[in-house]
């Protein structure tokens, strides 16, 4: 099955590789505007299942807006398909229920709730029962992936350091058991060592089979992890290309 069936701009891959994989995310003609300001303008790209795709480009050019439009956080024009199903406009819950979860820029945690509570709310997209959430595999996995958080789990999220907060945010994303995890600027404001740890975690998440989409300002760092890339300039997204590091 050719990936180009998803749209005009496909990734360039060998036929053999393309054969077995589904399209996780297909974006066609995506436009996002805030009032009169057009942030993203006719973006078209696809992400295959199992890929780690980086969205790169200078700041303020629309990278975050692409993710916001795709996940439904802001209203958009154009088509978005998650595993072949068309996503309704502006419905974040739908996207979460169908496998796409966003870890937003600047974390957006709940500062007065504990780290555990922040993480367990990631389960809200698939259950209302706190018991089920606690016992679920996704919650357990989310906690286990960050052993350095264990002593801080009962602490209010607002009192954690930047790096710890980023981990809580990723854990919250994982708790919703996503097939695609979209991470917006994971290393914003973090020191180098912490940023490397975050990327290590993202790498292991990727190895366990989750498709990744990472918005990253520093392309070199993103490409240590990602095997595909969408370059955004002036709100226009170039086709996803298989990029060598």
């Amino acid at each position, binding site marked *: 099955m050719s990936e180009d069936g998803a749209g005009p701009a496909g990734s360039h891959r060998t036929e053999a590789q393309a054969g077995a994989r589904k399209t996780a995310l297909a974006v066609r003609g995506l436009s996002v505007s805030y009032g009169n300001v057009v942030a993203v303008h006719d973006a078209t790209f696809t992400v295959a299942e199992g890929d780690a795709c980086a969205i790169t480009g200078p700041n303020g050019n629309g990278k975050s807006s692409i993710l916001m439009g795709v996940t439904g956080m802001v209203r958009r024009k154009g088509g978005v398909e998650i595993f072949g199903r068309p996503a309704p406009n502006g419905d*974040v819950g739908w996207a979460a229920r169908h496998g796409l979860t966003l870890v937003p820029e600047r974390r957006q945690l709940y500062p*007065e709730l504990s780290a555990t509570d922040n993480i*367990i*709310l*990631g389960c809200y*997209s698939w259950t209302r029962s706190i018991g089920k959430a606690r016992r679920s595999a996704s919650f357990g996995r989310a906690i286990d992936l960050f052993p350095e958080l264990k002593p801080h789990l009962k602490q209010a999220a607002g009192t954690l350091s930047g790096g710890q907060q980023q981990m809580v945010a990723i854990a919250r994303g994982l708790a919703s058991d996503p097939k695609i995890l979209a991470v917006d600027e994971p290393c914003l404001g973090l020191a180098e060592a912490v940023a490397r740890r975050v990327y290590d975690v993202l790498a292991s998440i990727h190895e366990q089979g989750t498709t990744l989409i990472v918005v990253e300002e520093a392309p070199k760092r993103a490409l240590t992890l990602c095997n595909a890339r969408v370059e955004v300039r002036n709100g226009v997204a170039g086709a996803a290309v298989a990029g060598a590091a």
Partner: protein
Amino acid sequence: MKFGNLLIAGLVTGSIYAVFAVCVSVWYRVSNILNLAVGDFAMVGALGVDNLYRVKGMPLPAAIATTLVVVAIFAFAYDRVVLRLAQDGPRRMEGIVVTFFFTFALSFFIDGVAKMLFGTDVHAAPALWSGQALTWASLHLERAGLLVLACAIMIGGAFWLYIRYTLGGKALEACGENAIGARIAGIDTRRYRWLIFVATAVIAAIFGIVESPITGYTYLSGATISLTGFLAAAYGGFRKPGRALVAGLFIGILEAMIGGYVSAQYGDTVLYAILAALVLTWPRGLGFESAVSG
């Protein structure tokens, strides 16, 4: 013992203010709107039950149930029609006008309807637990007052359990902590907006039913209760239900003390003057931002 009795009376009304203040505070966190109509729902509860039971002859439990159901339906309808138009459409309204004036108008609307239906006299729901006031040493506690305290503790306790031990409760907290973060997790803020609004209306009506035998209500009584509950929430900066609760108790006790020791006639005047002075001398401490644009 005068002080003791004043304290008890103050605690009774204070617990009502406290519950209302928590309702206002929680709802503000979720919707960014201040509910200035809380007391009016209480008034409707009291006068509605009185009307159905005394005038229309319904049995008391039916009267109570009917009143509460009607209040719930009305609150739901208000959210669906008015608040949805104001906040959920493409032309989303924001700013201090929305925060205040919608429920300001609602409050007077409810008062007007009450006047239409129930007239202008003083009424009260029938006492749910009739009998002599309970006494111990020289302290008196009206039975209705005990009921009020019991309701406050039960409702407050139930809410606390909800917040701490259920996912839905944590989601509600999340809405108030970070609206963007809540959306990320798929939490629907709008749903909580009407849920809490309806819950507030019904809780207020319950308290009106339980407390009215002590004081008696007219169609205008709701306004002052709304204001006091609102003020108590203000003392929590509107965003901290815990502080709002304490503030509600404090105002209730202060009101009783001023009425008892300073002057029964000018009691309210002095109370409001003190409350206003507190807001003016200590706005940051009470949690107000120094400027609100809109």
